[in-house]
């Protein structure tokens, strides 16, 4: 039992958290990318029957992804905020010592963009409520695109930081 507690309090614990954060981020990335594709490149119903995988993704109702995105975004954000403690003490200091200023700056911006995305989630959820209102068509598209950009940016920068000092590095 003591050994288990020691493990959970040590480096392994943070690695498990980081891995969970990564797994959820991958799920979120998939959902937000598929929704963005469906929103930006919708296809007509006639093409659906003969379509390949890409066409089927584009014809899927974008509203399907909303619940998944909201449900995944919140815990991914919270886990990231938790893992951030380890980043600040264990990763960022050597990054600065090795003059990886671009990575430090990019990670700082990640904090900001995911926070803005988090605050936009209630409005995002609202504009995607069924029945979809024509009046929100433009706002739905732009909010989805904003979330997609924020999630992709956060994923890529987080992956870069992990490569510097994280799981498997």
């Amino acid at each position, binding site marked *: 039992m003591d050994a288990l507690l020691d493990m959970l309090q040590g480096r392994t614990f943070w690695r498990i958290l980081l891995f969970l954060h990564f797994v959820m981020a991958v799920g979120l990335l998939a959902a937000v990318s598929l929704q963005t594709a469906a929103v930006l490149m919708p296809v007509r119903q006639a093409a659906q029957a003969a379509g390949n995988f890409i066409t089927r993704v584009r014809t899927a109702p974008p509203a399907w992804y909303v619940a998944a995105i909201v449900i995944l975004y919140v815990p991914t954000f919270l886990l990231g905020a938790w893992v*951030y403690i380890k980043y600040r003490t264990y990763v960022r*200091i050597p990054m600065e010592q090795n003059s990886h200023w671009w990575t430090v700056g990019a990670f*700082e911006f990640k904090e900001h963009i995911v926070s*803005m995305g988090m*605050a936009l989630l209630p*409005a995002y959820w609202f504009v995607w409520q069924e029945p979809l209102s024509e009046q929100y068509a433009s*706002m739905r598209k732009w909010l989805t695109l*904003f979330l997609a950009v924020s999630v992709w940016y956060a994923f890529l920068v987080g992956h870069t930081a992990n490569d510097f000092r994280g799981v498997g590095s």
Partner: protein
Amino acid sequence: MTQTLDVHERISQPGRSHTISEPASTAAAVPVAASKFGTFAFTFAIAFAILYTLLEQMNWPLFTYHPAVGKIDFWMQRPRSGEGPPMYWYGWLALSFAGAGVIGWIATLVPHRWLQRTTVFCCALAIVWSVAFIIAVAMDDRTRFDRDVVTWLAWVSAIPSFLAAAVVSYFIPLHWAQRMWTSWLLIMPIGGLAILGYSLKQYFLR
């Protein structure tokens, strides 16, 4: 009696866009007004973007967390010897989410006409103040080495910005304010990110 009540309702709720006497086109221009949650969600996002950017730029966190020693201090605390690096992000988030939540809740209680004008005022103030501050800093060479001058310029540029925002929000036609209300939802977070990104240039120009 029915007519009296109807007229009274229209008079007592001048800001409601969905009263019976409103034309359909006006009601369509303010769709979020039909839902309290929509009003909350939109106001929350706009308020969060402004508050978060302001708190980060001024470095006003609700608390400071020292992860190396597991200690939390109220408000902003500078790094102390032997206590490792301080973390302010949690403090900015806590204050921004709480503040935006309260503002969003208040927004559901006030007439939409007031809400839209207040939103124009706050967003115009945020934009004009930022631009005035940037211009003031660029024009004064002392800001390169004197941080007190920067702080002083920030407060001085607030006065004309406040007046300009008041004039804009007073004279802007109501239908413009209504149309713009949903647009602030994207303008403010993107504008905030532009300011926050610019302030990180020290990392990218080394």
